């Protein structure tokens, strides 16, 4: 039984990726992260148990993490499949690209262009990620947030970004 959550509840179809396979990927990712951390950590000075160097703790955690990764992948085959239905949605490239681009445009224009341009482009591009938003709605929303943002953040809280400036 799944609830209709605001995020990720609707429109999810079941059974595209089997939970077992998903847990293999999950365990693999954790294992990789653990090995990476242990490898990087072992590059720092280890020291002894009494006088631990900066490398001891990260290496130990990395090894532990890799071990947990093995356990996650290992327990995937123990028939956990009936517990929760696998949820999977078709990739939504438009939404993803627009949201990430919106945030990155903010970074770009905040350093070369000023807060006005940064805010407008961030909100406008992100809003275009929703398939039901029209150009006009996105532009209106962006304009509204820009006015609000400049009043509150530039004049009110004096955030260190010029309103217009390169």
């Amino acid at each position, binding site marked *: 039984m799944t609830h209709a959550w605001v995020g990720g509840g609707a429109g999810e179809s079941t059974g595209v990726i089997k939970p077992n396979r998903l847990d293999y990927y999950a365990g693999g990712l954790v294992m990789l992260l653990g090995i990476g951390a242990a490898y990087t950590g072992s590059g720092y000075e280890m020291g002894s148990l009494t006088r631990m160097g900066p490398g001891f703790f990260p290496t130990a955690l990395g090894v532990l993490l890799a071990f947990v990764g093995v356990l*996650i992948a290992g327990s995937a085959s123990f028939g956990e499949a009936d*517990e929760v239905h696998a949820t999977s949605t078709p990739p939504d490239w438009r939404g*993803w690209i627009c*949201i990430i681009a919106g945030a990155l445009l903010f970074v770009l224009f905040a350093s070369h262009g000023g807060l006005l341009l940064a805010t407008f482009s961030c909100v406008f591009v992100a809003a275009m990620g929703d398939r039901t938003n029209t150009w006009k709605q996105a532009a209106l929303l962006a304009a509204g947030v820009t006015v609000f943002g400049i009043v509150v953040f530039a004049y009110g809280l004096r955030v260190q970004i010029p309103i217009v400036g390169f």
Partner: protein
Amino acid sequence: MEIGFTDLIQGFGVALQPHNLLYCFIGVMVGNLVGVLPGMGVLSAVSILLPLTYGMPPVGAILMIAGIFYGAQYGGAICSILLNLPCHPPHAVTCLDGFPLTQQGKGGVALGITMIAALFGAAFGIIQMIFMAPYIANIAYSFGAAEICSLMLVGLLAGATLAKGSPLKGVAMTILGLLLGLVGQDINTGIERFTFGLLDLDDGVELVALSLGLFGIAEFLRSVNNTAPINTAYAKLRVSDMRPSKAEMKQAAFPILRGTLIGSLCSLIPGTGPTIASFVAYAAEKKIAKKPERFGRGAIEGVASPEASTHSSVQGDFIPTMSLGIPGDAAMALLLGALIIHGIQPGPRLIVEHADIFWGLIASFWLGNIMLIILNVPMIGIWVKMLMVPYRYLYPTALFFICIGVFAAKNTLFDVVMTVFFGVFGYILLKLRFEPAPILLGFVLGPRLEENFRRSLLISRGDLMTFIDRPISAFFLAVCVLLIAMQIWVRFKRKKPPILIPDTAYE
């Protein structure tokens, strides 16, 4: 308790100062708003406001951030009862009976009962905090590095295994959080760890960037073009509808009491926050009911008990955070992070050394809860209108707040890029059915865990037995073993979990 009483009066003196009153009001107001808005989480709301508090005095900042937490609980109930949307996980179970009540035209009564339950539960939680927190801190005062280390392990393990989702994955997330907490200069030697040559990472990963990536951007990536249609047909009500009848009050009285007690018990177990408290309360109420089949069809007890439980647990959750410096869940981890950012060392000394913060906070809980009742009863119409804001306008606006909030934390755009990185990473974790909340817990406790681990082994000259030889530390380790044994037992004994814990990211 004479000392406690004078301290409390002093606390009211702090909380009633006009600027602190204002910060508390802003906190509960934002919290309430975030609770009402479908698709906004408490964690992201706190993270957005956190950088703005950097320039504020610490007392005001903490009062405001705390206000967001308990304020959101009030707003979340409105969303659950009127829209059948669990905008806020602790209130997911309130939907089960709250929405049927709404369909029967009793949504106002359900909300009225919720307010009474909320106030009662919160009051109990605050009283519990007044008496227990100084007492626990007193015990913890004598803890050495080894004890602190073992205690943190209990907190981390409980946070990882008792919360939602697979316990193994929770442990993985906690360890990942600990590792992320180590990024930057090592406190003892000054060597840079895991910075990959990036100067911006010298001071470590920015707390706000991590949390807004994991709980803000990752959530947008998941929800965009993928939100459930909202049924607003029933979202109309007047203030006069909220007054419950005498019979309804009588029906709700004992469930409120039971819910409160369950909530306060849950808050004492680290790792079990309000979400679990409300589910346990609902399950218990259904179990002892004479006619359990009424539940799910609009039983007033099914609203009263979990709501009381949530509120008493939210207030009680502050106890381990304030008295031991060990947060029970991700939300409290953020509060702890805020304390550290404001230069306040969390731990048992906090109550004595920063009495103004501790007692001011408790006094502000009273004031804040009263403000929330005032905000919610006469102004219910405004909040109901807020429910109508569609997600497609909400998330682009929130994205801007995230960008500017992260920038304001340290005045660097590098952190905004980090936020995007954590957002994408968090989305991948969500898709692989990880619960990212324990990352925050590990992240905040990571540096302190390492420091105390190193120190305790330095004192014992490298003898690992020190953790078992010291009785208090041995007790905590035994609790850890018990937690792990419990998980193994649950796994092999039971096929299905006893209560349904919804799998979602925002806490």
